[in-house]
């Protein structure tokens, strides 16, 4: 079965490269943020790269993804181009939304990155709707809703799960559990029970994986995608991971008292990127020199994209009153 087959060398290298690229983009955003030229909130995905990349590796361009306020990793993993992403965060005319959305709405429909919506839970039913349309029209595309652990506290998640399960729609509900909603830990928001039980009670298949283990994410994602394409309905994937930096903004915030430096260090030890690199090196798929070359290529791309975003002009205010209606 495809789901359990190890990734080909090319795909494994792509996965590593995609994770590293997301990390380097986010770190570059954090580095440049204090220049105050990116004048919108940023919710960085540092630490959570394997979840986005692993799920998207199981998808094609025809599959559709919906994300949240923390959408940078999903946008890039789904194939959204870097220059328009950065230009959007800089509020520039070449942004993927022409500066209308900012960092919380990253969208690239051409790559199946349908929409990002910052209201918690709000984009989940959109994925179900895409899946309904695909099913009615006989396409075998799969739709993915990315969300965090707080979204399952929203009624709309349950409404979406109920309907997707009822109609056996091809949906992946991907819950990245990073243990916190802003500063509030999961244990203060939900009773002690597996999050997967919520989905099981809606009658759908579930899987729980280490969200910092790329191979594990790819494995559960591939299986869920295959199930969806077979017409066997939606799946809920619970991926354990950790947000390294503050909820919103470029900084580390382990010093302000809602979580401990020790907890952060324990998760940093599980950093998905060196973990995967070690696996690739031990299998001989990646050598140190090639890894360095890859990193420097990505760094050059990022530098060029930042230069592009900075050089791009601000949109004209007259554009604010256009495309209100189709």
């Amino acid at each position: 079965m495809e789901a359990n087959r190890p990734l080909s060398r090319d795909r494994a290298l792509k996965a590593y490269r995609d994770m590293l690229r997301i990390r380097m983009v986010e770190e570059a955003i954090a580095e440049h943020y204090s220049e105050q030229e990116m004048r919108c909130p940023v919710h960085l995905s540092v630490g959570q790269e394997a979840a986005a990349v692993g799920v998207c590796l199981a998808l094609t361009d025809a599959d559709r993804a919906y994300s949240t306020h923390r959408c940078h990793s999903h946008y890039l993993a789904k194939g959204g181009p870097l220059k328009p992403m950065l230009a959007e965060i800089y509020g520039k005319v070449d942004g993927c939304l022409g500066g209308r959305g900012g960092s919380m709405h990253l969208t690239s429909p051409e790559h199946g990155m349908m929409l990002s919506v910052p209201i918690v839970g709000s984009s989940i039913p959109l994925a179900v709707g895409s899946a309904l349309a695909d099913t009615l029209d006989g396409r075998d595309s799969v739709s993915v809703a990315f969300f965090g652990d707080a979204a399952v506290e929203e009624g709309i998640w349950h409404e979406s799960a109920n309907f997707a399960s009822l109609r056996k729609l091809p949906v992946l509900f991907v819950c990245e559990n990073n243990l916190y909603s802003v500063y509030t830990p999961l244990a203060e928001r939900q009773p002690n029970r597996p999050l997967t039980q919520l989905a099981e009670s809606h009658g759908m298949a579930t899987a729980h994986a280490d969200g910092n283990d790329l191979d594990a994410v790819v494995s559960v994602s591939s299986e869920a995608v295959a199930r969806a394409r077979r017409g066997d309905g939606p799946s809920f994937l619970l991926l354990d991971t950790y947000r390294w930096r503050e909820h919103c903004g470029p900084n580390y915030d382990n010093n302000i008292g809602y979580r401990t430096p020790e907890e952060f260090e324990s998760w940093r030890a599980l950093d998905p990127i060196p973990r995967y690199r070690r696996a690739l090196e031990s299998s001989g798929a990646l050598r140190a020199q090639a890894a360095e070359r890859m990193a420097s290529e990505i760094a050059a791309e990022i530098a060029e994209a930042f230069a592009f975003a900075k050089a791009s002009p601000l949109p004209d205010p007259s554009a604010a009153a256009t495309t209100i209606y189709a």
Partner: protein
Amino acid sequence: MTALRTISMADAIREGLTEAAKRDPSVIFFAEGVADPAAVYGTLKGIGSVIGHERMIEMPVAEAGLCGVAIGAALSGKRPVISFHRVEFALLAMEQIVNNAAKTTYISGGRHRVPIVLRLVVGRGWGQGPEHSQSLETMFSYFPGLKVVMPTYPADTKGMVVAAVEDDNPVILIEHRWCHYVQGHVPEGYYREAIDGPRTIRQGKDITIVATSYMVLEAMRAATALAELGVDAEVIDLRVLRPMALAPVLASVRRTGRLLTVDTGFKTLGIGAEVVAETTARCFAALKAAPQRIGLPDHPLPSSRGLIRGLYPDSIRIMRTISEMLKLPAEREAQAEAELAAQRGNLPIDVPDPFFKGPF
């Protein structure tokens, strides 16, 4: 002659939806009880037999989720029509409507489109009470990106329903429950009526009455009575609350010099407030009297027919207000009021007035 057959607005809605869905296979229907025996006041009855039952999507009792599902389907090529039995249920879906329906075209610079129709039933009757009889059209009309249509007459309604389904934008269709019973001559087959703004229903030179939905009928009845008093009222059916195209209203007020608004919602911060503010700002020099608004008072709408006495605006109140604006002789106005009251006879106040059944 078939063009002159008479049907109700509820049937006109059903015909409009059916014609639009027959022509475009991407049209799908969502409702709680989409194919049940009641079929949303009969407005969806039999559509599945015409277009295929797989296009009639039963909606679990999950208004927010299913509104989001409809938006997602719209982003992926479908034209969903969602029917809510009462506007209050749509409040559960407000986040989806205000954010994802209204803003996705804008945010995406037009790359995404959200061609959905949300049918919301408003209005009073039979003791429905504070959470089943509100007219909340103002709330939905607040948001750029939505279109809000509120038709009165059956022929108009059928054509506007077709236009709403064919529109590439989210269209909110506000249906007054009592207007469902209004009869009118409705052409058979397919036709569309542009969602483009107000219509002048009655021409007059002394005062401009701008009304919505059921209040258009009350305004027309008042206009007929006013004619007996020598007052020539112009009546404009606002029809489209967003985008609000007030050019015909402004032109009318420049001729008449007087404006009265009558709508089904709350007076404070209501549709009438917007019409009066904009018209006053743009026609100030033409005004001969301070514009007036008629609407609901600042309290929730109770159930008991005792408590609603005098609550809902009607032709008598419209006539009385106009009479004050025009300083008509009190005794003649009182006589006309008595005549209007006599026309209504002993009809209970919590059922639609058969006078308004038409046909129109």
